[in-house]
Protein backbone atom coordinates (compact mmCIF):
# COMPACT_ATOMS: atom_id res chain seq x y z
CA UNK A 1 0.00 0.00 0.00
CA UNK A 2 1.11 3.52 -0.77
CA UNK A 3 -0.26 6.43 1.24
CA UNK A 4 0.68 10.07 0.90
CA UNK A 5 -0.76 12.70 3.19
CA UNK A 6 -0.33 16.40 2.48
CA UNK A 7 3.04 15.90 0.90
CA UNK A 8 4.99 18.85 -0.44
CA UNK A 9 8.40 18.95 -2.02
CA UNK A 10 10.43 22.06 -2.45
CA UNK A 11 13.76 21.78 -4.26
CA UNK A 12 16.78 23.68 -2.95
CA UNK A 13 16.49 26.06 -5.91
CA UNK A 14 13.10 27.18 -4.66
CA UNK A 15 10.87 25.24 -7.06
CA UNK A 16 7.95 23.61 -5.28
CA UNK A 17 7.39 20.56 -7.45
CA UNK A 18 4.73 18.82 -5.33
CA UNK A 19 2.14 20.80 -3.44
CA UNK A 20 0.10 19.34 -0.60
CA UNK A 21 -0.57 16.06 -2.35
CA UNK A 22 -2.59 13.27 -0.72
CA UNK A 23 -3.56 9.91 -2.16
CA UNK A 24 -3.80 6.24 -1.36
CA UNK A 25 -3.01 3.34 -3.65
CA UNK A 26 -4.13 -0.06 -2.43
CA UNK A 27 -2.30 -3.31 -2.94
CA UNK A 28 -2.89 -4.78 -6.35
CA UNK A 29 -3.78 -1.50 -8.04
CA UNK A 30 -2.43 -0.31 -11.39
CA UNK A 31 -2.25 3.45 -11.73
CA UNK A 32 -1.07 5.80 -14.45
CA UNK A 33 0.41 9.14 -13.55
CA UNK A 34 -0.17 11.65 -16.30
CA UNK A 35 0.44 15.35 -16.67
CA UNK A 36 2.40 17.83 -18.74
CA UNK A 37 6.16 18.02 -18.84
CA UNK A 38 7.49 19.46 -15.59
CA UNK A 39 4.25 18.81 -13.72
CA UNK A 40 5.96 16.91 -10.92
CA UNK A 41 5.42 13.28 -11.90
CA UNK A 42 9.03 12.24 -11.49
CA UNK A 43 9.33 14.20 -8.26
CA UNK A 44 6.31 12.38 -6.93
CA UNK A 45 7.79 9.05 -7.92
CA UNK A 46 11.25 9.83 -6.51
CA UNK A 47 9.73 10.43 -3.10
CA UNK A 48 8.18 6.98 -3.07
CA UNK A 49 11.51 5.19 -3.11
CA UNK A 50 13.16 7.87 -1.03
CA UNK A 51 15.48 9.25 -3.68
CA UNK A 52 14.01 12.53 -2.52
CA UNK A 53 12.87 13.40 0.97
CA UNK A 54 9.52 15.16 1.18
CA UNK A 55 9.67 18.68 2.58
CA UNK A 56 6.49 18.12 4.57
CA UNK A 57 3.67 15.60 4.90
CA UNK A 58 3.59 11.86 5.50
CA UNK A 59 4.53 9.04 3.18
CA UNK A 60 4.00 5.35 3.75
CA UNK A 61 5.16 2.73 1.26
CA UNK A 62 5.06 -1.06 1.62
CA UNK A 63 4.85 -0.74 5.39
CA UNK A 64 7.71 1.74 5.71
CA UNK A 65 7.21 5.19 7.16
CA UNK A 66 9.38 7.31 4.87
CA UNK A 67 9.43 10.44 6.98
CA UNK A 68 12.09 10.25 9.63
CA UNK A 69 13.39 7.03 8.09
CA UNK A 70 16.97 6.25 8.97
CA UNK A 71 19.47 6.21 6.13
CA UNK A 72 20.47 2.67 6.88
CA UNK A 73 16.91 1.39 6.49
CA UNK A 74 16.49 2.87 3.03
CA UNK A 75 17.99 -0.12 1.19
CA UNK A 76 15.40 -2.42 2.72
CA UNK A 77 12.59 -0.18 1.49
CA UNK A 78 14.09 -0.16 -1.96
CA UNK A 79 14.32 -3.92 -2.11
CA UNK A 80 10.55 -4.04 -1.94
CA UNK A 81 10.25 -1.58 -4.81
CA UNK A 82 11.23 -2.10 -8.41
CA UNK A 83 11.94 1.15 -10.25
CA UNK A 84 12.29 1.99 -13.92
CA UNK A 85 14.04 5.35 -13.90
CA UNK A 86 13.24 7.95 -16.51
CA UNK A 87 16.95 8.18 -17.31
CA UNK A 88 17.45 4.39 -16.92
CA UNK A 89 20.33 4.68 -14.40
CA UNK A 90 22.18 1.62 -15.60
CA UNK A 91 25.63 0.99 -14.17
CA UNK A 92 27.97 1.88 -17.05
CA UNK A 93 30.72 -0.59 -16.08
CA UNK A 94 28.42 -3.58 -15.85
CA UNK A 95 27.07 -5.62 -18.74
CA UNK A 96 23.37 -6.00 -19.37
CA UNK A 97 23.37 -9.27 -17.47
CA UNK A 98 25.35 -7.85 -14.56
CA UNK A 99 23.15 -4.79 -14.34
CA UNK A 100 20.06 -6.87 -13.88
CA UNK A 101 21.84 -9.39 -11.68
CA UNK A 102 23.09 -6.62 -9.41
CA UNK A 103 19.59 -6.01 -8.07
CA UNK A 104 19.46 -9.68 -7.04
CA UNK A 105 22.99 -9.78 -5.73
CA UNK A 106 22.37 -7.05 -3.21
CA UNK A 107 19.77 -9.25 -1.54
CA UNK A 108 22.36 -12.05 -1.56
CA UNK A 109 20.39 -14.45 -3.72
CA UNK A 110 21.88 -17.81 -4.76
CA UNK A 111 24.15 -17.56 -7.81
CA UNK A 112 22.18 -20.17 -9.71
CA UNK A 113 18.87 -18.53 -8.87
CA UNK A 114 20.29 -15.22 -10.06
CA UNK A 115 21.43 -16.67 -13.33
CA UNK A 116 18.14 -18.36 -14.09
CA UNK A 117 15.96 -15.45 -13.11
CA UNK A 118 18.04 -12.80 -14.90
CA UNK A 119 17.98 -14.73 -18.15
CA UNK A 120 14.28 -15.21 -17.73
CA UNK A 121 13.47 -11.51 -17.38
CA UNK A 122 15.92 -10.53 -20.12
CA UNK A 123 14.13 -12.92 -22.41
CA UNK A 124 10.86 -11.34 -21.38
CA UNK A 125 12.03 -7.89 -22.51
CA UNK A 126 13.61 -9.32 -25.66
CA UNK A 127 17.26 -8.84 -24.79
CA UNK A 128 18.50 -12.38 -24.29
CA UNK A 129 20.94 -11.88 -27.14
CA UNK A 130 22.54 -8.80 -25.66
CA UNK A 131 23.50 -10.01 -22.18
CA UNK A 132 27.23 -9.40 -22.66
CA UNK A 133 26.89 -5.82 -23.93
CA UNK A 134 27.55 -2.70 -21.95
CA UNK A 135 24.84 -0.02 -21.66
CA UNK A 136 26.64 2.36 -24.02
CA UNK A 137 26.54 -0.34 -26.69
CA UNK A 138 22.75 -0.42 -26.64
CA UNK A 139 20.11 1.62 -28.39
CA UNK A 140 17.94 3.92 -26.27
CA UNK A 141 15.05 1.50 -26.30
CA UNK A 142 17.27 -1.42 -25.37
CA UNK A 143 18.62 0.46 -22.37
CA UNK A 144 15.09 1.18 -21.29
CA UNK A 145 14.21 -2.48 -21.50
CA UNK A 146 17.23 -3.39 -19.37
CA UNK A 147 15.90 -0.91 -16.82
CA UNK A 148 12.52 -2.63 -16.93
CA UNK A 149 14.13 -6.03 -16.52
CA UNK A 150 16.07 -4.86 -13.48
CA UNK A 151 12.94 -3.39 -11.93
CA UNK A 152 10.98 -6.60 -12.15
CA UNK A 153 13.72 -9.13 -11.49
CA UNK A 154 13.10 -9.29 -7.72
CA UNK A 155 9.33 -9.55 -8.06
CA UNK A 156 8.84 -6.46 -5.96
CA UNK A 157 5.80 -5.52 -3.91
CA UNK A 158 5.62 -2.19 -5.68
CA UNK A 159 6.68 -1.45 -9.23
CA UNK A 160 7.28 2.16 -10.11
CA UNK A 161 7.99 3.06 -13.71
CA UNK A 162 8.80 6.54 -14.94
CA UNK A 163 7.93 6.54 -18.64
CA UNK A 164 9.05 2.96 -19.23
CA UNK A 165 8.10 3.13 -22.90
CA UNK A 166 9.28 6.64 -23.86
CA UNK A 167 12.01 5.27 -26.13
CA UNK A 168 10.10 2.29 -27.43
CA UNK A 169 8.13 1.64 -30.60
CA UNK A 170 4.43 0.88 -30.09
CA UNK A 171 4.90 -2.85 -30.52
CA UNK A 172 7.66 -3.18 -27.97
CA UNK A 173 5.76 -0.82 -25.66
CA UNK A 174 2.84 -3.19 -25.81
CA UNK A 175 5.11 -6.04 -24.86
CA UNK A 176 6.34 -4.12 -21.83
CA UNK A 177 2.76 -3.22 -20.86
CA UNK A 178 1.81 -6.88 -21.06
CA UNK A 179 4.59 -7.66 -18.65
CA UNK A 180 3.60 -4.90 -16.23
CA UNK A 181 -0.03 -5.98 -16.28
CA UNK A 182 0.95 -9.58 -15.66
CA UNK A 183 2.99 -8.54 -12.66
CA UNK A 184 0.09 -6.47 -11.46
CA UNK A 185 -2.13 -9.56 -11.75
CA UNK A 186 0.05 -11.25 -9.18
CA UNK A 187 -0.77 -8.50 -6.68
CA UNK A 188 2.04 -6.02 -7.25
CA UNK A 189 1.16 -2.34 -7.17
CA UNK A 190 2.16 -0.83 -10.52
CA UNK A 191 2.59 2.91 -10.72
CA UNK A 192 3.53 4.29 -14.06
CA UNK A 193 4.17 7.82 -15.27
CA UNK A 194 3.53 8.13 -18.98
CA UNK A 195 2.87 10.50 -21.86
CA UNK A 196 1.44 7.76 -24.02
CA UNK A 197 -2.12 8.86 -24.61
CA UNK A 198 -3.10 5.90 -26.72
CA UNK A 199 -1.87 3.42 -24.16
CA UNK A 200 -3.67 5.07 -21.27
CA UNK A 201 -6.87 5.20 -23.25
CA UNK A 202 -6.71 1.64 -24.53
CA UNK A 203 -5.53 -0.17 -21.42
CA UNK A 204 -7.74 1.45 -18.87
CA UNK A 205 -6.58 1.65 -15.27
CA UNK A 206 -6.72 4.22 -12.53
CA UNK A 207 -5.43 7.60 -13.74
CA UNK A 208 -3.77 10.18 -11.50
CA UNK A 209 -3.29 13.52 -13.21
CA UNK A 210 -0.71 15.88 -11.77
CA UNK A 211 -0.49 19.48 -12.89
CA UNK A 212 1.85 22.03 -11.42
CA UNK A 213 2.52 19.78 -8.45
CA UNK A 214 -1.11 19.17 -7.51
CA UNK A 215 -3.26 16.09 -7.96
CA UNK A 216 -5.95 17.50 -10.24
CA UNK A 217 -7.71 14.32 -11.22
CA UNK A 218 -8.03 10.80 -9.81
CA UNK A 219 -10.23 8.40 -11.79
CA UNK A 220 -10.71 4.68 -11.22
CA UNK A 221 -11.12 3.80 -14.90
CA UNK A 222 -9.74 6.99 -16.41
CA UNK A 223 -8.47 8.15 -19.75
CA UNK A 224 -5.47 10.25 -20.69
CA UNK A 225 -7.71 13.25 -20.78
CA UNK A 226 -5.53 15.83 -22.48
CA UNK A 227 -6.49 17.06 -25.93
CA UNK A 228 -4.05 17.87 -28.66
Amino acid at each position, binding site marked *: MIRMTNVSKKYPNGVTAIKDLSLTIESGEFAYIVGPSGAGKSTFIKMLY*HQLRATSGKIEVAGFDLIGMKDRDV*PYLRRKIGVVFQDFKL*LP*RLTVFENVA*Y*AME*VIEAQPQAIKDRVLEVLELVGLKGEIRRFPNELSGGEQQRVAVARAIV*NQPEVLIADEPTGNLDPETSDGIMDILEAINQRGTIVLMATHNKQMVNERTHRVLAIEDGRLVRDEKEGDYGYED
Partner: protein
Amino acid sequence: MKTRTLKRHLNDSFKSLKRNGWMSVAAVSAVTVTLLLVGIFFAMIFNFNKISQDIENDVHVRVMIERGTTSKQKDQLQKKLEKIAAVKDVTYSSRKKELNKVVGSYGQSFKMFTGDDNPLYDVYTVSTTKPSQTIKVAKHAKQLKYVYDATYGGNNAKKLFKVMSSVRKWGIGFTLLLLFVAVFLISNTIRITILSRRDEIGIMRLVGATNAYIRWPFLFEGAWVGLLGVIIPIIIIDVGYGWVYRHMALSMASAGYSMLKPGIFLFQLDLTMAVIGIVIGALGSVISMRRFLRI
Protein backbone atom coordinates in the same frame (compact mmCIF):
# COMPACT_ATOMS: atom_id res chain seq x y z
CA MET B 1 29.51 -11.93 5.45
CA LYS B 2 29.00 -15.16 3.54
CA THR B 3 32.01 -16.45 1.64
CA ARG B 4 29.85 -16.35 -1.45
CA THR B 5 29.33 -12.64 -0.96
CA LEU B 6 33.00 -12.10 -0.22
CA LYS B 7 33.90 -13.84 -3.44
CA ARG B 8 31.42 -11.69 -5.30
CA HIS B 9 32.91 -8.53 -3.81
CA LEU B 10 36.41 -9.61 -4.76
CA ASN B 11 35.21 -10.45 -8.22
CA ASP B 12 33.44 -7.14 -8.59
CA SER B 13 36.52 -5.25 -7.46
CA PHE B 14 38.65 -6.97 -10.13
CA LYS B 15 36.10 -6.27 -12.82
CA SER B 16 35.77 -2.68 -11.83
CA LEU B 17 39.53 -2.20 -11.73
CA LYS B 18 39.81 -3.63 -15.21
CA ARG B 19 36.86 -1.79 -16.69
CA ASN B 20 37.88 1.56 -15.31
CA GLY B 21 40.78 1.35 -17.71
CA TRP B 22 42.84 4.49 -17.84
CA MET B 23 41.42 5.71 -14.58
CA SER B 24 42.85 2.65 -12.86
CA VAL B 25 46.14 3.07 -14.65
CA ALA B 26 46.35 6.68 -13.53
CA ALA B 27 45.54 5.79 -9.93
CA VAL B 28 48.05 2.95 -9.89
CA SER B 29 50.76 5.10 -11.38
CA ALA B 30 50.14 7.82 -8.81
CA VAL B 31 50.72 5.24 -6.11
CA THR B 32 53.76 3.93 -7.95
CA VAL B 33 55.44 7.29 -8.23
CA THR B 34 54.61 8.35 -4.70
CA LEU B 35 55.93 5.15 -3.19
CA LEU B 36 58.98 5.23 -5.39
CA LEU B 37 59.78 8.60 -3.91
CA VAL B 38 59.12 7.34 -0.41
CA GLY B 39 61.24 4.26 -1.00
CA ILE B 40 64.21 6.09 -2.46
CA PHE B 41 64.09 8.78 0.17
CA PHE B 42 63.81 6.33 3.00
CA ALA B 43 66.71 4.31 1.64
CA MET B 44 68.73 7.51 1.55
CA ILE B 45 67.77 8.91 4.92
CA PHE B 46 68.34 5.68 6.78
CA ASN B 47 71.71 5.22 5.17
CA PHE B 48 72.62 8.80 5.84
CA ASN B 49 71.77 8.18 9.46
CA LYS B 50 73.86 5.08 9.51
CA ILE B 51 76.85 6.83 8.00
CA SER B 52 76.59 9.90 10.15
CA GLN B 53 76.66 7.56 13.12
CA ASP B 54 79.71 5.89 11.71
CA ILE B 55 81.35 9.28 11.50
CA GLU B 56 80.40 10.23 15.00
CA ASN B 57 81.62 6.93 16.30
CA ASP B 58 84.99 7.87 14.89
CA VAL B 59 85.38 10.35 17.67
CA HIS B 60 87.10 9.04 20.75
CA VAL B 61 88.19 10.31 24.13
CA ARG B 62 91.94 10.58 24.55
CA VAL B 63 92.91 9.88 28.11
CA MET B 64 96.50 11.01 28.77
CA ILE B 65 98.28 9.06 31.46
CA GLU B 66 100.50 10.86 33.93
CA ARG B 67 104.17 10.29 33.47
CA GLY B 68 105.69 7.70 35.64
CA THR B 69 102.60 5.58 35.92
CA THR B 70 103.61 1.95 36.17
CA SER B 71 102.18 -0.56 33.83
CA LYS B 72 100.25 -2.15 36.72
CA GLN B 73 98.70 1.16 37.56
CA LYS B 74 97.91 1.59 33.90
CA ASP B 75 96.06 -1.70 33.95
CA GLN B 76 94.12 -0.48 36.96
CA LEU B 77 93.26 2.68 35.11
CA GLN B 78 92.20 0.74 32.08
CA LYS B 79 89.81 -1.33 34.17
CA LYS B 80 88.35 1.79 35.70
CA LEU B 81 87.91 3.34 32.31
CA GLU B 82 86.22 0.24 31.05
CA LYS B 83 83.77 0.45 33.95
CA ILE B 84 82.56 3.93 33.06
CA ALA B 85 79.01 3.73 31.76
CA ALA B 86 78.78 4.01 27.97
CA VAL B 87 82.39 3.02 27.36
CA LYS B 88 82.69 0.48 24.59
CA ASP B 89 86.37 -0.19 24.40
CA VAL B 90 89.71 1.11 25.48
CA THR B 91 92.92 0.88 23.53
CA TYR B 92 96.39 1.78 24.63
CA SER B 93 98.85 3.83 22.65
CA SER B 94 102.29 4.75 23.91
CA ARG B 95 103.67 8.29 23.76
CA LYS B 96 106.03 7.11 21.08
CA LYS B 97 103.21 6.08 18.88
CA GLU B 98 101.43 9.30 19.62
CA LEU B 99 104.42 11.32 18.53
CA ASN B 100 104.50 9.48 15.26
CA LYS B 101 100.95 10.57 14.68
CA VAL B 102 101.82 14.17 15.36
CA VAL B 103 104.79 13.90 13.06
CA GLY B 104 102.39 12.66 10.46
CA SER B 105 100.22 15.71 10.56
CA TYR B 106 102.50 18.48 11.72
CA GLY B 107 105.74 17.72 9.96
CA GLN B 108 109.09 16.10 10.36
CA SER B 109 110.49 18.65 12.76
CA PHE B 110 108.89 16.85 15.66
CA LYS B 111 111.16 13.94 15.03
CA MET B 112 113.81 15.50 17.21
CA PHE B 113 111.66 14.83 20.27
CA THR B 114 111.88 11.05 20.13
CA GLY B 115 112.90 9.18 23.22
CA ASP B 116 112.84 10.97 26.56
CA ASP B 117 112.46 14.33 24.86
CA ASN B 118 109.05 13.28 23.78
CA PRO B 119 106.67 15.82 25.31
CA LEU B 120 103.64 13.64 24.83
CA TYR B 121 101.89 11.21 27.10
CA ASP B 122 100.89 7.60 26.92
CA VAL B 123 97.29 7.55 25.94
CA TYR B 124 94.19 5.43 26.32
CA THR B 125 91.83 5.91 23.42
CA VAL B 126 88.36 5.33 24.75
CA SER B 127 85.44 4.78 22.39
CA THR B 128 81.92 5.17 23.66
CA THR B 129 78.76 3.24 22.85
CA LYS B 130 76.89 6.45 22.12
CA PRO B 131 78.65 9.36 20.46
CA SER B 132 76.65 11.75 22.57
CA GLN B 133 78.29 10.24 25.66
CA THR B 134 81.77 11.33 24.57
CA ILE B 135 81.84 14.56 26.54
CA LYS B 136 80.52 12.91 29.69
CA VAL B 137 83.07 10.12 29.49
CA ALA B 138 85.85 12.63 29.01
CA LYS B 139 84.81 14.54 32.11
CA HIS B 140 84.57 11.38 34.13
CA ALA B 141 87.95 10.15 32.97
CA LYS B 142 89.59 13.42 33.91
CA GLN B 143 88.84 12.80 37.57
CA LEU B 144 90.41 9.38 37.69
CA LYS B 145 93.75 8.71 39.29
CA TYR B 146 96.85 8.61 37.04
CA VAL B 147 95.01 10.65 34.46
CA TYR B 148 96.84 13.75 33.34
CA ASP B 149 94.10 14.98 31.06
CA ALA B 150 91.23 13.69 28.96
CA THR B 151 90.26 15.38 25.71
CA TYR B 152 87.98 14.59 22.82
CA GLY B 153 88.21 15.54 19.20
CA GLY B 154 88.12 19.24 19.84
CA ASN B 155 86.40 21.97 17.95
CA ASN B 156 86.03 20.19 14.63
CA ALA B 157 84.28 17.24 16.20
CA LYS B 158 81.90 19.49 18.06
CA LYS B 159 80.98 21.23 14.85
CA LEU B 160 80.49 17.95 13.09
CA PHE B 161 78.29 16.70 15.93
CA LYS B 162 76.13 19.74 15.64
CA VAL B 163 75.75 19.53 11.89
CA MET B 164 75.07 15.82 11.91
CA SER B 165 72.51 15.98 14.63
CA SER B 166 70.69 18.87 13.05
CA VAL B 167 70.73 17.18 9.67
CA ARG B 168 69.38 14.08 11.32
CA LYS B 169 66.67 16.02 13.12
CA TRP B 170 65.64 17.55 9.80
CA GLY B 171 65.78 14.12 8.24
CA ILE B 172 63.29 12.77 10.74
CA GLY B 173 61.02 15.75 10.20
CA PHE B 174 61.21 15.32 6.47
CA THR B 175 60.59 11.59 6.75
CA LEU B 176 57.38 12.27 8.63
CA LEU B 177 56.42 14.94 6.14
CA LEU B 178 57.03 12.56 3.27
CA LEU B 179 54.95 9.88 4.94
CA PHE B 180 52.13 12.33 5.39
CA VAL B 181 52.47 13.49 1.80
CA ALA B 182 52.43 9.94 0.50
CA VAL B 183 49.34 9.09 2.51
CA PHE B 184 47.63 12.25 1.41
CA LEU B 185 48.49 11.92 -2.26
CA ILE B 186 47.46 8.30 -2.49
CA SER B 187 44.17 8.85 -0.70
CA ASN B 188 43.58 12.03 -2.67
CA THR B 189 44.04 10.20 -5.96
CA ILE B 190 41.65 7.51 -4.84
CA ARG B 191 39.25 10.22 -3.75
CA ILE B 192 39.23 11.78 -7.18
CA THR B 193 38.53 8.47 -8.86
CA ILE B 194 35.68 7.90 -6.43
CA LEU B 195 34.33 11.41 -6.98
CA SER B 196 34.08 10.63 -10.65
CA ARG B 197 32.02 7.58 -9.77
CA ARG B 198 29.50 9.19 -7.48
CA ASP B 199 26.71 8.53 -9.95
CA GLU B 200 27.56 4.86 -9.99
CA ILE B 201 27.43 4.73 -6.21
CA GLY B 202 24.13 6.57 -6.27
CA ILE B 203 22.64 3.98 -8.62
CA MET B 204 23.82 1.15 -6.40
CA ARG B 205 22.00 2.76 -3.51
CA LEU B 206 18.90 3.22 -5.61
CA VAL B 207 18.62 -0.45 -6.46
CA GLY B 208 18.72 -1.48 -2.82
CA ALA B 209 22.38 -2.10 -2.01
CA THR B 210 23.31 -1.43 1.61
CA ASN B 211 26.25 0.82 2.29
CA ALA B 212 28.30 -2.13 3.47
CA TYR B 213 27.55 -4.01 0.28
CA ILE B 214 28.62 -1.06 -1.86
CA ARG B 215 31.70 -0.38 0.20
CA TRP B 216 33.43 -3.75 -0.02
CA PRO B 217 34.23 -3.84 -3.73
CA PHE B 218 35.51 -0.28 -3.51
CA LEU B 219 37.64 -1.20 -0.53
CA PHE B 220 39.12 -4.14 -2.40
CA GLU B 221 39.59 -2.07 -5.53
CA GLY B 222 41.48 0.54 -3.51
CA ALA B 223 43.62 -2.22 -2.07
CA TRP B 224 44.39 -3.60 -5.55
CA VAL B 225 45.35 -0.16 -6.74
CA GLY B 226 47.72 0.07 -3.79
CA LEU B 227 49.07 -3.42 -4.37
CA LEU B 228 49.63 -2.90 -8.07
CA GLY B 229 51.13 0.49 -7.36
CA VAL B 230 53.67 -0.92 -4.94
CA ILE B 231 55.10 -3.59 -7.20
CA ILE B 232 57.27 -1.38 -9.39
CA PRO B 233 58.68 0.68 -6.51
CA ILE B 234 59.62 -2.52 -4.68
CA ILE B 235 61.37 -3.91 -7.73
CA ILE B 236 63.18 -0.67 -8.48
CA ILE B 237 64.23 -0.13 -4.87
CA ASP B 238 65.37 -3.70 -4.35
CA VAL B 239 67.35 -3.93 -7.57
CA GLY B 240 68.61 -0.37 -7.36
CA TYR B 241 69.66 -0.59 -3.74
CA GLY B 242 71.46 -3.83 -4.39
CA TRP B 243 73.32 -2.20 -7.27
CA VAL B 244 74.26 0.90 -5.30
CA TYR B 245 75.28 -1.21 -2.36
CA ARG B 246 77.63 -3.30 -4.45
CA HIS B 247 79.12 -0.26 -6.16
CA MET B 248 79.43 1.95 -3.12
CA ALA B 249 80.41 -0.62 -0.54
CA LEU B 250 84.09 -0.49 -1.42
CA SER B 251 84.55 3.25 -1.54
CA MET B 252 82.44 3.54 1.59
CA ALA B 253 84.50 0.98 3.40
CA SER B 254 87.72 2.69 2.40
CA ALA B 255 86.37 5.83 4.02
CA GLY B 256 85.58 3.81 7.12
CA TYR B 257 81.80 3.74 6.78
CA SER B 258 79.25 1.23 5.59
CA MET B 259 75.74 1.23 4.15
CA LEU B 260 72.88 -0.72 5.67
CA LYS B 261 72.95 -4.34 4.54
CA PRO B 262 70.22 -4.97 1.93
CA GLY B 263 68.64 -8.05 3.56
CA ILE B 264 66.51 -6.94 6.48
CA PHE B 265 66.57 -3.28 5.62
CA LEU B 266 65.01 -3.84 2.19
CA PHE B 267 62.46 -6.18 3.67
CA GLN B 268 61.38 -3.53 6.15
CA LEU B 269 61.33 -0.85 3.50
CA ASP B 270 59.28 -2.97 1.11
CA LEU B 271 56.87 -3.79 3.88
CA THR B 272 56.46 -0.13 4.77
CA MET B 273 55.71 0.75 1.17
CA ALA B 274 53.29 -2.14 0.74
CA VAL B 275 51.43 -1.18 3.89
CA ILE B 276 51.19 2.45 2.87
CA GLY B 277 49.99 1.55 -0.62
CA ILE B 278 47.48 -1.13 0.26
CA VAL B 279 46.11 0.24 3.50
CA ILE B 280 45.82 3.80 2.28
CA GLY B 281 44.37 2.61 -1.02
CA ALA B 282 41.68 0.63 0.76
CA LEU B 283 40.94 3.14 3.50
CA GLY B 284 41.11 6.12 1.16
CA SER B 285 38.56 4.45 -1.02
CA VAL B 286 36.14 3.74 1.79
CA ILE B 287 36.55 7.12 3.43
CA SER B 288 36.12 9.05 0.19
CA MET B 289 32.85 7.37 -0.61
CA ARG B 290 31.30 7.99 2.79
CA ARG B 291 29.58 11.15 1.73
CA PHE B 292 27.98 9.48 -1.27
CA LEU B 293 26.37 6.88 0.91
CA ARG B 294 23.52 9.07 2.12
CA ILE B 295 19.88 8.72 0.98
